[in-house]
Structure formats: structure tokens, C-alpha cells
């Protein structure tokens, strides 16, 4: 069956460091992968989309890599700030719609 795995343990880092979150998947051949941010009690917010033919994509302090051989995407936040604290979800398109991972909580301490 198709599965998306994100680290269920929260990632704690210090302000200014680079946060790296992982998304692994099985039994998908996705044309693209997406990352979302979700704050407590709010809906997810779209951040980045990376296509299968793109190895890396950047947006301001965010960087996403996509390795279709390893079936893995890495999401990096450089120069992290306490305001980056949130849960980050990856999403892949299944047969007809997006399927979301359960997300990884990032906590950035001052």
C-alpha cells in the first residue's frame, strides 16, 4: 500500500541553525511533491512544490530536495527563527488526490 512517512518526533533546534525535515514514501511514483506548514488550530498553508525532474527548489530561507531514487524529500529551513515553529507536512498525489503525511513538529528555541 502507499505510505508517506515523516518523523513523528518533534525536532528541537536553536535559533539560527538549519532545520532539516524528512519525508519518505513507498509505492508512489509522484510527478511532484509538496510541503505545507500547519500552525496549531489552523489549516495547512502551502509552501513549496517540487517536480520529479527538479532536484532542488528554493524559496527565501526554504530549500526542498527530491530524490525519486531514494523516494525521499528533504525540507530545509536555514537561519531558523522561533516563528518557524510549526508542524510541516509533505504531500504526494495518489490516484486522484493529494495524500498528506502526518507531519513533523519543529520547535525553534531562542
Amino acid at each position, binding site marked *: 500500500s502507499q505510505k508517506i512517512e515523516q518523523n513523528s518526533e518533534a525536532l528541537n533546534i536553536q535559533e539560527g541553525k538549519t532545520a532539516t525535515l524528512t519525508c519518505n514514501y513507498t509505492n508512489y511514483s509522484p510527478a*511532484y511533491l*509538496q510541503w505545507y506548514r500547519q500552525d496549531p*488550530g*489552523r*489549516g*495547512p*498553508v*502551502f509552501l513549496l*512544490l517540487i517536480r520529479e525532474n527538479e532536484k532542488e527548489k528554493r524559496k527565501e530561507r526554504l530549500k526542498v530536495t527530491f530524490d525519486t531514487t531514494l523516494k525521499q524529500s528533504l525540507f530545509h529551513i536555514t537561519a531558523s527563527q522561533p516563528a518557524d515553529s510549526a508542524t510541516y*507536512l509533505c504531500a504526494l*498525489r495518489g490516484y*486522484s*488526490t*493529494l*495524500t*498528506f*503525511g*502526518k*507531519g513533523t513538529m519543529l520547535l525553534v528555541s531562542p
Partner: protein
Amino acid sequence: SQTIHQWPATLVQPVGSPLSLECTVEGTSNPNLYWYRQAAGRGLQLLFYSVGIGQISSEVPQNLSASRPQDRQFILSSKKLLLSDSGFYLCAWSATGRSYEQYFGPGTRLTVT
């Protein structure tokens, strides 16, 4: 610009009571519309999606139903709520013909007592 509205923001309902949650989108035409549920500590579960008026696809069998009476209106309903229906309900939209990025509403926190 596009905006998505959901209401109510919070709801407490007794077991066996009916439910109606509404979602509307502004600033776009013929969007794909989605209903998700997020239970505490769990991921987003897709409940229903719609690619047009009156077209509803259900992802999981359940106590809920959805309707799309107008192009930019999506309604989630139940005739009799169960305790297991408690959760955070999210409506989302994406552009026509694409399943690319989705844009979510603020959500409704439903507690069934």
C-alpha cells in the same frame, strides 16, 4: 485574490444530532473542493472531494455526506453524529484541472459529546 471561508469555527454537538458545516470560496471559478478531517495527533484524512457542481467523490465510508449545490459552495453533513465524528474539519480548494497546491480554510473544531 482568492479566499476560503468556513463556519462555524467551533461546534459542540450531542451524539445523534445533525451536522451541517459550510465552506465557500471567493475569487475563483470551478475550483476543486475538498473536505478533510484531522483527529487529535493524527494526519489529514480526505473525506470528500468535488470537481464540479453535484459531483462528489467519497474517500472513506462513514457517517458523513457532502454536497456542492453551487460552484463555490461545499457542505458537509450528517444526520446523526457519533462520538467518533469529533475532530478538526478542514475545507480546501485547488485550481480547476490540477491537483497541485491546495488552499485550506480556517477549519471547524467539532466536539461530539
